[in-house]
């Protein structure tokens, strides 16, 4: 319990307090900045665009992710179980790639004037600048959330439910519509909520592809970004006011999705588990395979290889001439190594911190219903706060030194600016939601008697948790660790505001190169980031496979 209290205190200090600092500025003078912002037509437009964007992204990513999940989990489209597993892994790769890198790649490939695709086709047939392009890129970045959730839910569902429909006379398609989809609807709804929030809070992609469109399109996040870059207290208050709007929007979406998810309880009694019989695709098999391959090529392989390839192209003017000159330049720079070391350390530490804290919070939510619900809300809310706003909150809250004084002596002093600590706090607060989510799902799958057996064997609550619960949830905790560590590896939005003289990260390096010094060198860093992320992803898969045996 004391761990729970500690976790709550940490949450209040590191998550709630900085946000409160932001809100306070937004609500200064009786809410003047908020009211002023609400009266702005520009704000209305940004809000409207955000809703349209999030709506489209959700509307496309959910069916796409769910379809892919079904194909991977339930059809005979694969030659062997190995290819099934490999395809599943390949399709979740985008999770390991920062969305703004995807946007960079797509900007190169698909800008309306001279994107590579258009150059190859010698005709302007794609234009990814503007809302359409942003939607598409965000869809390719976010469908894996749905894929993972629906796959998990499909593999948990009692196959007899679907088989009963088959024997009742329904063909595979009818089964899909009448039984499978309703069964996975709750998990689809939950994933839809996540995707909606993801799209609402997205910054990099809307900025990179929206501001160069003609006319440019703005969203809540990019408008907030402008306010923050323009500087001044007034602007900060405006940004905070918009952040409230953003938070409310994504909060509503979250609430709606969890309402939808809970409305019909789908008790998934699993009897003796048998592998469900796979849907035989017959002649469609070829088309499904071709479709999968085409999708993986365009949505995953193409953008990633574009990034790698630009890093080798001599300049943007002559994309055909390859050389290692940028690689040599980047690798020769003193700070490159430092930045990557920092990022890897940050990713590992934050991943570990969030995985553990997420577990603690999820556990609290299970043990003490009401308090737990509040705490898990607090832990999940910051994900919906734009990184810029969160970073400003942290700057406002932690530019001062906090001293704990016992017996009139300073016993503990906390001063974060310029340290990796501040970045860990920022990343941790932002991504805690993932940790809580993962841990909750894992805990729900563990029969309470396993832990009770430890108690009756003589283990106290802590001991029981360590000896029984932790080992059992460790695959899920590892997954949460990876899901958090990957975006931290390349985090950009918050890092550029919070890094210190000695704490440059891969993200800030990338940003610096991209926007000031040397754009081709940025592709090198991007390639490195993606490479490290893919290696990390691969290693964690290996590790978790070993664990589950």
């Amino acid at each position, binding site marked *: 319990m004391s761990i729970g209290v500690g976790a709550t205190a940490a949450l209040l200090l590191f998550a709630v307090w900085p946000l409160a600092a932001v809100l306070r500025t937004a609500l200064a003078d009786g809410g003047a900045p908020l009211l002023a912002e609400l009266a702005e037509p520009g704000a209305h437009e940004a809000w409207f665009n955000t809703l349209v964007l999030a709506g489209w992204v959700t509307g496309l990513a959910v069916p796409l992710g769910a379809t892919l999940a079904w194909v991977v989990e339930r059809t005979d489209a694969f030659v062997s179980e190995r290819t099934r597993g490999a395809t599943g892994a390949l399709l979740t790769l985008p999770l390991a790639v920062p969305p703004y890198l995807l946007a960079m790649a797509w900007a190169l490939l698909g800008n309306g004037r001279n994107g590579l695709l258009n150059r190859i086709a010698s005709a302007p047939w794609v234009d990814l600048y503007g809302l359409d392009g942003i939607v598409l890129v965000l869809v390719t970045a976010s469908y894996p959330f749905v894929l993972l959730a629906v796959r998990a839910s499909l593999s948990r569902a009692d196959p007899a439910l679907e088989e009963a429909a088959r024997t009742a006379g329904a063909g595979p398609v009818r089964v899909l519509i009448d039984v499978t989809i309703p069964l996975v609807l709750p998990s689809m709804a939950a994933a839809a909520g996540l995707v909606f929030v993801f799209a609402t809070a997205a910054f990099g992609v809307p900025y990179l592809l929206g501001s160069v469109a003609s006319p440019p399109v703005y969203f809540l996040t990019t408008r907030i970004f402008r306010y923050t870059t323009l500087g001044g207290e007034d602007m900060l208050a405006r940004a905070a006011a918009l952040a409230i709007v953003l938070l409310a929007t994504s909060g509503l979406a979250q609430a709606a999705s969890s309402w939808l998810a809970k409305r019909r309880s789908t008790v998934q009694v699993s009897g003796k588990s048998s592998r469900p019989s796979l849907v035989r695709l017959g002649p469609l098999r070829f088309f499904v395979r071709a479709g999968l391959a085409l999708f993986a090529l365009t949505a995953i392989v193409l953008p990633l290889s574009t990034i790698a390839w630009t890093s080798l192209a001599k300049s943007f003017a002559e994309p055909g001439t390859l050389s290692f000159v940028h690689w040599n330049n980047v690798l020769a720079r003193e700070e490159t190594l430092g930045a990557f070391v920092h990022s890897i350390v940050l990713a590992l530490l934050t991943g570990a911190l969030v995985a553990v804290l997420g577990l603690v919070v999820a556990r609290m939510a299970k043990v003490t219903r009401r308090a737990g619900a509040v705490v898990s809300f607090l832990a999940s809310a910051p994900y919906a706060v734009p990184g810029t706003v969160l970073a*400003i909150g942290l700057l406002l809250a932690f530019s001062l030194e906090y001293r704990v004084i016992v017996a009139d002596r300073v016993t503990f002093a906390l001063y974060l600016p310029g340290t990796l600590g501040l970045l860990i706090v920022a990343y941790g607060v932002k991504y805690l939601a993932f940790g809580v989510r993962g841990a909750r799902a894992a805990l729900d799958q563990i029969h309470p008697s396993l832990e009770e057996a430890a108690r009756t064997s003589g283990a106290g609550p802590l001991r029981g948790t360590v000896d029984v619960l932790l080992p059992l949830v460790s695959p899920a905790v590892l997954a949460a660790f990876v899901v958090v560590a990957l975006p931290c590896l390349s985090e950009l939005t918050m890092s550029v505001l919070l*890094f210190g003289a000695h704490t440059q990260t891969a993200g800030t390096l990338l940003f610096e190169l991209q926007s000031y*010094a040397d754009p081709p060198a940025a592709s090198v860093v991007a390639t490195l980031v993606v490479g490290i992320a893919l290696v990390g992803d691969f290693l964690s898969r290996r590790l978790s496979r070993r664990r589950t045996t």
Partner: protein
Amino acid sequence: RVEVGAPRVRQQAADTQPTGRVTVYTSMYRHVIDAMKPILAEALPEVEVEWLQGGSEKLATRLDAELTAGTPSADLVMTSDPLWYRRLAEERHLAAFAPIPALAMPRTLVDPRGYFVTSRISTMVLAYNEEHVKPDEVPRTFLDLFDERFVGRVTTPDPLGSGTTFTTLAFLVHTHGEDVMQRMKAVNTIASGGNSSTLTRLESGEHHVGFVLLENVLAAEKRGTPVKWKLPEEGAVIIPGPIALLAKGPNPVAARAVYEVLLSKAAQEKIVDGLMHAPFDTLEPPTGAPPLPKLLDTKYQWTDDFVHAAVDQSQTLREKFSAIMGGH
């Protein structure tokens, strides 16, 4: 009990010998910083200088937030937006200081009250891709960019995201009237990102003409580029990059010493190596660039009149720009 306050002081302020750590927030390029490090180390062996390098706007956001909270962690700021320094000075966040080298600068490059001086000069020039722009088409003035012949071919950095660009916009509007923005709109100017992404758009041929900082083009020329630059006939927009001492900085004594070294000839030569102009006519311009006096001879002068207008109307100007260009 919990106490909240300024962090522990790292060095006694009364100490007149410059020692300890000095933190500089700067938007200078990293290779320039790297080149300056040995100079500082030699001149001030007791002082450890920490460079926090980042975009001007990011650093401004960060410092604003720190100042709002009460304590800046920087001693010196050295970024590129003169208007912001004026606001900092008015809000009394800066300490007045007159370093000796500043006496040799052209007076237009020095704040008369001594709150900041120029440490380097960036120049906004015309740029075009020679593969796409015929010789007789090449723009000659800023206004030329927004001519009918360039419809859909113009790009600039985003004035709302980049300080140097905002300054340029303010000068154009101040000099030619608000009509300029209408003309930008009329040719579908894409104003996005920073100078470097603008250069990228020009290099790749996505756009053909625009304005961009001279230093970016010079750097590109070094590695080979189809983008050429041109000084506008009426003169370039020059953006002095100020340096200033923060009033509440943690280590003012050492900070002053660093301030002076950064303006020394040795350090300023590194600025020139970094393809920017130093604020002294005694120093050579960067290779291929016009000499300083030629630059300063421009229609776009930092008069009080302009500065007041730019500061007072910065908000309205931004709003108008947004409204005209679309988006906001």
